[in-house]
């Protein structure tokens, strides 16, 4: 083979190789990057303007909604969700709150009961005054409200809001069957944050329907029943 010919052949091969590798690299990076980086957006606590029930004013405020399925959301619809039939906390589960302050959380609870596997979680812990304020519907469908330190029957828990590393555990009572359609239990409580950090929070009711022991699916996916509390 003449030297000039082999150089040209080699040059072509190098160009083809670099292009192929470059395209493959770009594809792989895109695939991986999309997988790793894509996740739920975050919700920053807003400053509270008035006292909520028996909760103090001048605390950071977070408003969440728990639903039996994403497509039945009322307050915070999430139309393009990839899993519209999953239970979920809405609008998101990545919460940003300020450090060294009191955070007030209001949860609009619209889901039915799954029941606590461990009735220990029926008692609220780690919240201001040890009590949460709840508006709910009794067995006759009449609206009631009150301050509670625990839910009466562990079998009627729909979800919990728990931040284990801060010692916060709050049971969320299920909506009564007798309640009118589209109604919700509103549960409000406050807890104190300390220094900055990233804490995980989760639900302790095995509410992941159709998964073994109820803890699969939404329970193990960020954006549904698992999330972060970012204290800044």
């Amino acid at each position, binding site marked *: 083979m003449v030297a000039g010919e082999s150089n040209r052949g080699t040059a072509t091969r190098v160009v083809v190789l670099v292009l192929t590798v470059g395209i493959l690299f770009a594809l792989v990076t895109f695939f991986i990057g999309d*997988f*790793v980086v894509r996740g739920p957006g975050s919700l920053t606590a807003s400053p509270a303007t008035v006292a909520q029930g028996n909760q103090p004013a001048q605390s950071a405020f977070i408003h969440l909604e728990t639903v039996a399925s994403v497509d039945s959301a009322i307050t915070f619809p999430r139309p393009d969700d990839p899993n519209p039939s999953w239970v979920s906390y809405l609008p998101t589960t990545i919460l940003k709150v300020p450090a060294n302050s009191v955070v007030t959380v209001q949860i609009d609870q619209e889901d039915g009961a799954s029941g606590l596997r461990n009735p220990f979680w029926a008692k609220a812990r780690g919240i201001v005054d040890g009590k949460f304020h709840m508006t709910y519907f009794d067995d006759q469908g009449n609206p009631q409200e009150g301050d509670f330190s625990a839910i009466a029957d562990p079998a009627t828990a729909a979800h919990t809001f728990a931040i284990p590393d801060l010692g916060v555990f709050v049971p969320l009572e299920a909506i009564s069957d007798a309640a009118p359609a589209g109604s919700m239990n509103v549960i409000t409580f406050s807890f104190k944050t300390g220094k900055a950090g*990233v804490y995980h929070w989760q639900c302790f009711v095995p509410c992941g329907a*159709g998964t*073994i022991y109820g803890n*699969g*699916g939404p329970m193990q996916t960020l954006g549904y029943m698992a999330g972060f509390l970012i204290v800044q």
Partner: protein
Amino acid sequence: MATASLGNGGPALQTSERQMVLPTNLLTAIILAAVAFWAGVQLGNSFGFNDGLNTGVLLGYTFGTIMFLVGLGFANYPLARLFGWPISPQSAGDEHRGVWRYLNLSLDHKVIGVQYLVAMLTAMLFGGIGAMLIRTSLLSPDQTLVPPDKYLVLVSMHSVMMIFVASAAIVGPFGNFFVPYMIGTNRMAFPRLEALSFWLVPPAIVILLASPLFGGFPTGWTGYAPLSEQAGQGFDSYIVGFTLIGLALCVSGVNMLTTVISLRAPGMTWTRLPIFVWGVFSASILGTFAAPILASALIMQGLDRSMNTSFFISSNGGSPYLWENLFWFFGHPEVYIFILPAFGIVMELIPHFARKPLWGYRTAVVGLLGVTLLSWFVWQHHLFVSGIAPALRPFYMLSTEMISIPTGIVFLVAFGTLWRAKISMTVPMLFCLGFLFNFLIGGLSGVYLSDVPSDVTLHGSYFSMAHFHFTIVGGEIFAIIAAIYYWFPKMTGRMLNMTLGKIHFWWMMIAFNLAFMPLFAAGILDMPRRVSTYAPSLQSLNDWVSFWAYLLFASMLLFAVNVIWSWFFNPKVAPADPWHVRSIEWQLPTPLPRRNFERIPTFTSGPYDYGNPNPRPAVDLGPEPAPA
């Protein structure tokens, strides 16, 4: 009438021009696989089990793999025999030419060896990328860079992909390519099984890579139930992919065992067999008999996930212990499948580069077979803290400690060979010496783990993780790389660049040790495995590890550049015997002729007869074969 040869140099078959209806090649295979996957998903979902749609995915993967194999042409020969059709070159698996030959079903063991080499290196690349993402995530204990659900998917992908690589990366490329040469035969006993064992691997890799599209799976490579049964459709990739690899192990094992037992040339007695062949042989014993257990256990998981059985659900009468025991009964022989061929490589290369006979050959064989036997009796050491019957623990502690005796024999034989030798510090030899160092650390840390009281602190921590990375990466991967540098000239006709090779060795050795040594400390300091967060005091340690891990990956990229450049861009053909050694494959010309031996050779001595003032030629090849 055309004649087609069966594989490489088997008896020529009478053929006719009759072809199959469809041309069977890779394109047909991919198209049929895609269609069959879709059909399987539709069929499975239509059963209506309340099962998270796992039946569909499981059936889809299964049908897809079957039609992939049919599309490649695996069904041609069985159907031809069944219906009495004349054998065509297609059904004999030998009709393609050129590069296309390497992308299709071929019954030539040399082609299969090269196919395996490329597949293994590609899979290693994917596994390595997963590892880099894991180390990036562990740069900081807060889990916001890579969220914990994605993190577990990465851990599982990395680990399962690397397990696929480790299972087959020596027996596949080098066993298939060189065992026929080393025993003096033209073909393996079952070329179609050999081809099948390879062609099960690309579907397994693709199925595993598809798992993140279905949400991935969170269990790591051990797939413990019941966590696995909580997982979504991503876990079905694990079930089908791992079953395919298990089948490949079993099938390859049957082929290899039969070949070595039955097809040895005259004069190739058991006591003259190159130690590499012994390594492959003993691993094949384990592969043949352990893999079916894995397959059955995985099928049980599949049934639990799709047909609502309860093999592993204790509330309904099953038990997670069943999975743990079945898995580890396979899993422990599996890790010896990884390391026995690596021992074979190291004990093969050291005599050649030390120019001394293999010292204590029979002891070495006893060592390999001893490891093979004992590996069946140790699996409970993975379950020491699982709540097994306490009276079992002393027995398994003893058996696990005992397995270090035959393993130590490998070091004895290596030392005896190195003693007073004339060592050439070629790149393969450097990697063998690196193996000895790394495997020493891996093995010693295994002793820590084998004693139950210390295992109580170390189980499930980064200590255990460092142990198996030292043995598998520091051990097997170093041996694989040594084998690649050594055998590359014969397999591809090109020499790898040795200067780059030396840089690669030192870079990799230093980066690997600096990356993985601190992980022993991390484990002793209370860091569990498979976690995306850790105590803040361990952050500097983790950052150090990640830094050196990136450098380790970079060294492998350097190796990849060396491989690609030397293979495709270096026009200089390698000499027939660059290492000047006595092993039979180096007595043959480069590039190798299509037919291994025109006349089956007669062996007259072992391959390690160095230092003999009147050496007999190792093999009588008869008259020189005519130029190709």
